[in-house]
């Protein structure tokens, strides 16, 4: 893609968002969770299902919920019956891909009001552990015979990052501490901990060195939803629409053993696409608040660098100096992120988009960042260090 010109027909805005609680295990079925979030998003926008033209659903591997054709299965709870429905999937990057796909539905003029719903119920994959079903993402010929645990690949990326950038585990643990504290302001949060300290992270169970248990986001159930509308409709629905200014997404190869792991190229490329569309040439100055994907604490740092919010190897320094705190110059994950609010995979990514929506509208309450917010960014990442999805929103 070259130049800023994008031949889309309509500007698109987010006009409502909804979330369920995020918890380790919930009573509700995947369909019921999708409904709770979708209903709240519609209520916030003041719409009913009759107002919705198209539905976009996002959910990560079918193996978690234990239901194949999960998009079709979720369609009912997501408000998709007898409507054009599509389910999108790019692993962990799905949550931010849902509003991206919903955007092109509305930007093209095909649909005026789009309901975008993301759901995940990891607790269904109960035995021996939800981590176990991740084994099917590895290459069946060259990797699976080695019996890898999913955490290996993250530990390898984290360790490579620590080696290349000379970062200590203590520096990385600061991210987990910040996010788990931030989560105390979030009504959906699973892991709020106002008293957590760096030592707690360092002393938690070592899973795969250098990853300890508190470096990782939890297993979660939950759902999230947003309503998007094209410009004319958006202005009719609300006085405070939040515009989608830029979108970007890329996929790298599954052959992760052939690449440098210290820098997330896939995020950089997705971000450049979104920035070009949004007219952003200095993200560090032009983005007021960001929700980079943080399933692991080092990932927040890694992604800040991929997004150009920090120079290479600079993110740990900004974190230590407090720049990324809610009252800092560049608040990062004021929601509490996946480490604090929880990680129902696709729903967690869309939760980040909802957070930026509420931050820009000034509705984040206890979580509202100190500086004024005009432009915000949410990003997710997924698969075998492959997928990057970025959305830039603003007034």
């Amino acid at each position: 893609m070259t130049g800023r010109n994008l031949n889309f027909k309509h500007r698109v805005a987010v006009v409502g968002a909804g979330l369920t609680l995020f918890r380790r295990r919930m009573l509700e079925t995947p369909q019921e969770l999708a409904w709770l979030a979708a209903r709240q998003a519609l209520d916030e926008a003041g719409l009913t299902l009759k107002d919705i033209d198209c539905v976009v659903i996002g959910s990560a591997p079918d193996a978690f919920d234990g239901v194949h054709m999960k998009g079709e299965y979720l369609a009912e709870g997501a408000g998709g019956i007898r409507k054009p429905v599509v389910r999108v999937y790019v692993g962990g990057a799905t949550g931010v891909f849902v509003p991206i796909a919903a955007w092109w539905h509305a930007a093209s003029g095909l649909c005026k009001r789009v309901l975008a719903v993301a759901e995940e119920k990891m607790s269904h994959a109960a035995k021996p552990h939800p981590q176990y079903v991740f084994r099917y993402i590895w290459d069946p010929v060259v990797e699976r015979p080695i019996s890898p645990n999913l955490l290996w690949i993250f530990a390898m990326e984290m360790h490579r990052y620590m080696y290349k950038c000379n970062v200590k585990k203590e520096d990385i643990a600061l991210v987990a501490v910040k996010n788990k504290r931030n989560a105390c302001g979030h009504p959906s949060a699973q892991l709020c901990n106002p008293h957590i300290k760096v030592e707690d992270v360092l002393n938690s169970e070592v899973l795969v060195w250098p990853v300890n248990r508190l470096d990782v986001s939890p297993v979660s159930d939950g759902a999230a939803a947003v309503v998007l509308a094209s410009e004319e409709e958006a202005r009719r629905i609300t006085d405070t629409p939040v515009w989608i200014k830029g979108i970007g997404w890329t996929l790298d190869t599954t052959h992760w053993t052939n690449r440098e792991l210290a820098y997330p190229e896939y995020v950089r490329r997705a971000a450049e696409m979104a920035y070009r569309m949004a007219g952003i040439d200095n993200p560090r100055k032009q983005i007021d608040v960001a929700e980079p994907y943080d399933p692991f604490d080092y990932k927040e740092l890694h992604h800040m660098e991929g997004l150009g919010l920090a120079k290479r190897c600079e993110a740990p320094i900004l974190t230590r100096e407090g720049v990324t705190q809610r009252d800092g110059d560049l608040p990062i994950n004021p929601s509490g992120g996946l480490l604090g609010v929880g990680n129902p995979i696709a729903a967690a990514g869309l939760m980040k988009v909802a957070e930026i929506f509420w931050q820009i509208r000034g509705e984040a309450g206890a979580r509202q960042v100190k500086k004024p917010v005009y432009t915000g960014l949410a990003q997710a990442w997924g698969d075998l260090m492959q997928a990057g999805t970025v959305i830039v929103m603003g007034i």
Partner: protein
Amino acid sequence: MTKPKNPRGTPFEEVAFPVFEMPHVGKARYSYAAGWALGRFLAGLKEGKILGTVCKKCGRVFIPPRMYCSYCFREVDEWVEASGEGVIHTVVASYIEATRARAGEPKVVGVVKLEVPGFSFDDHFFPGLLHYICGATDEDVKNMKLFGARVRARFKPPEQRTGSVTDIECFEVAGP
């Protein structure tokens, strides 16, 4: 007011409810095709060789081998054999199994950047394999001494090889 307002959902610990348990995939078993490129790669391992493919247009060497150059999008030109030696690109110590159960002994695993005679590689694209690292402890992982350490493939005895990546027992750290 803090959004989201009263997010709903019923946490497990608050109610006792019936759980319906069943083996999801049951007894289904997959029989994976190794493919044009990886088929020959596995046959090579059985003979104690690590094989790769080369794209002469961009000069990339692929290990694990591909049938096509994923960048030039053309068929690869020839096969090459790696020396069996390499350096550690990244390494970790796993205290858990694939099932998340605690492992008896920590396992050292990593990505080995392989050497192929006649070629040189930077850190951005290189022939590399995920494998066990032997001759090193979790302490060596923690003090980061293993980054860049030289390793050599240790193959199983020929009669025990089956045409699998596990025909390589591990990559052994070269002595001081």
